[in-house]
């Protein structure tokens, strides 16, 4: 058990590529922290630096208050679960799980007891004498977890441990991992590029982009108060809608019509010295079919009337897609997000598009106009040049 502190940690690879830049994160004892971000943003590099598998170029890593930069991996007392599981193919499941204990010179009886206990927790008891080659993907994944938990390390590091599993097994193992971590109470750093895993698993989420930490916070906080366009687009599924808008005398003018600015938003905009042209972000789930909204709430909100392009019924909800007139919101961060997450799927034409999530009771139909309603207070405004959230009221 220990807290992990990354103090201005940077990594420059020998070929000159800076993979991680000035990462400052403090992970409390027993906390479950997720590192999330698109491919190549430096998640694995950060994790490997904590593990000791990569040297730290500058900055300091402390585990349990002690400087770790120069310590070999084996002296850091942390366990790691690899994306590829990295099971020893010439050993049985039992031998795989016993390996860390045998290296630690634990006596035979204790090894047997601990391995069997871990096997019971992970439901591997009947597979103990099989070899990894004969196990299914999910079983291998559990063996990899078992090897990590047997010796009660100070911390667990997991690098996309579920990404080789099929969708159903992934959801199942996700709950498993979460349950296990709660039960053991061991500090855990978990890398993923899947925002659902990030939202559901962690106590706190660290969003990274191009080696730089964008924001650190609880999943709910990141969802409600993204610090910039990148985080706003990355967290939440489907992604937030982004449309260009202009700020003029207390109203926001854009393809969704004129939106009155609330006092709170107006105050924040003045504080932030907002430019006249901004990017407006509204989450799909903050829309509702106007016909289903109560009269006085409806009057307080904004109603937009448009023709439904595509309607997807999920049973529990309906997703209605609209195309908006005018240009699509443009920003370097959005381009990167679009490339990575594919949020620009529907709007490849260059015109803006809008995704809304409506109640299942909605009468919206494909090809027919419908009125959608949203609460203007839920709107987030971003600076198109820096990507900064102008309505950010965090802390």
């Amino acid at each position, binding site marked *: 058990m220990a807290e992990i502190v990354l103090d201005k940690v940077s990594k420059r690879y020998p070929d000159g590529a800076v993979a991680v830049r000035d990462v400052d994160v403090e992970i409390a004892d027993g906390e479950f922290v997720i590192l999330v971000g698109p491919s190549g943003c430096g998640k694995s590099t950060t994790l490997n630096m904590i593990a000791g598998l990569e040297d730290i170029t500058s900055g300091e890593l402390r585990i349990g208050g002690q400087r770790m930069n120069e310590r070999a991996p084996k002296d850091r007392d942390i366990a790691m679960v*690899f994306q590829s*599981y*990295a099971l020893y*193919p010439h050993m049985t499941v039992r031998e795989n799980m016993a*390996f860390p204990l045998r290296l630690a010179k634990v006596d035979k009886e204790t090894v047997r007891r601990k391995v069997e206990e871990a096997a019971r927790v992970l439901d591997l008891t009947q597979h103990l004498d099989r070899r*990894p080659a004969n196990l299914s993907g999910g079983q291998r*994944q559990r063996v990899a977890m078992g090897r990590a938990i047997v010796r009660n390390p100070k911390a667990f590091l997991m690098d996309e441990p579920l990404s*080789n599993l099929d969708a159903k097994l992934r959801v199942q193992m996700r709950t498993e991992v979460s349950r296990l971590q709660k039960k053991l109470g061991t500090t855990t750093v978990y890398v993923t590029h899947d925002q659902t895993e990030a939202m559901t698993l962690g106590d706190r989420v660290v969003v990274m982009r191009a080696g730089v930490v964008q924001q650190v916070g609880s999943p709910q906080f990141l969802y409600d108060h993204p610090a910039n366009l990148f985080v706003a687009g990355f967290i939440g599924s489907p992604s937030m809608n982004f449309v260009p808008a202009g700020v003029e005398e207390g109203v926001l003018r854009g393809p969704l019509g004129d939106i009155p600015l609330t006092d709170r938003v107006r105050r924040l905009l003045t504080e932030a010295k907002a430019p006249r042209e901004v990017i407006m972000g509204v989450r799909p789930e903050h829309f509702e079919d106007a016909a289903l909204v109560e009269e006085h709430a409806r009057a307080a909100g904004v109603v937009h009337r448009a023709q439904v392009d595509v309607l997807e019924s999920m049973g529990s909800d309906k997703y209605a897609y609209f195309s908006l007139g005018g240009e699509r919101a443009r920003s370097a961060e959005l381009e990167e997000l679009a490339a990575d997450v594919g949020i620009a799927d529907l709007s490849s034409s260059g015109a803006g598009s809008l995704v809304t999530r409506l109640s299942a009771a909605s009468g919206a139909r494909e090809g027919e106009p419908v009125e959608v309603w949203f609460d203007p207070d839920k709107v987030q405004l971003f600076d198109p040049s820096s990507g900064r959230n102008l309505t950010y009221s965090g802390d």
Partner: protein
Amino acid sequence: MVLEVPDRRMSPEARRRAKWWFVNAVVVVYALLPVLWIVSLSFKTKETITDGRLLPREWTLENYRAIFGTSDFVRALVNSVGIALISTTIAVVLGTMAAYAIARLDFPGKRALVGVSLLIAMFPQVSLVSPLFEMERGLGLFDTWPGLILPYITFALPLAIYTLSAFFREIPWELEKAAKMDGATPAQAFLKVIAPLAAPGVFTTAILVFIFCWNDFLFALSLTSTERSRTVPAAMSFFSGSSQFEDPTGTTCAAAVVISVPIIVFVLFFQRRIVAGLTSGAVKG
């Protein structure tokens, strides 16, 4: 060997198999016939040796008795086994270390090292015989075990390095990281995780190197002068019949059969350890 006769009613699958049987049979006969011939000659008596029959009319162990009766041959056998085993061990150990470095590490001069070892492998050995002869005489290595072991290692090392680095490249090196995370020192990670996985490659290389050393004739002939270090291939060329006019065919063939046995034993022994697909199951689902 069973040769299926092609039949008009055979399915395409069966016909394809029959074709392969036929091709295999041709290859096997082509390769084995000379060997069978040597075996046959080694069991023939002096009188029937030129009768041209594959199956000896009269079987005799006379030739074997003759070669084991001379201390020369037994001594040469000991030399062969000793020299080949020592050379193989040293070449494989050094080759393993070099191949590990080549497969795993980036160090300055890596390309040069690989290039130089390739150069050695390509160097015509014949051109080295006279200089080696002079050098070994000067150093007092001529006609000693080390006098043969040293050049064998020199020429076996490139072979070992190449074979081993091909094997090492296939090992999932993430396992080494996993071992380090599990608390292993670099030495333990190598011994307990990497070495067992590399073993098939090491054994394969050992077989190849052993055969190379065992079969060498050129150095064995030119860098030795007495039974002190002469190996079997060289000793065989000194066989003579009981009289000047007698051809030592029978004894030579018997010796050839005898020196093939260790190779066969060696290969059969190590073949069991060459378990294909040992690394499967290490990674992915």
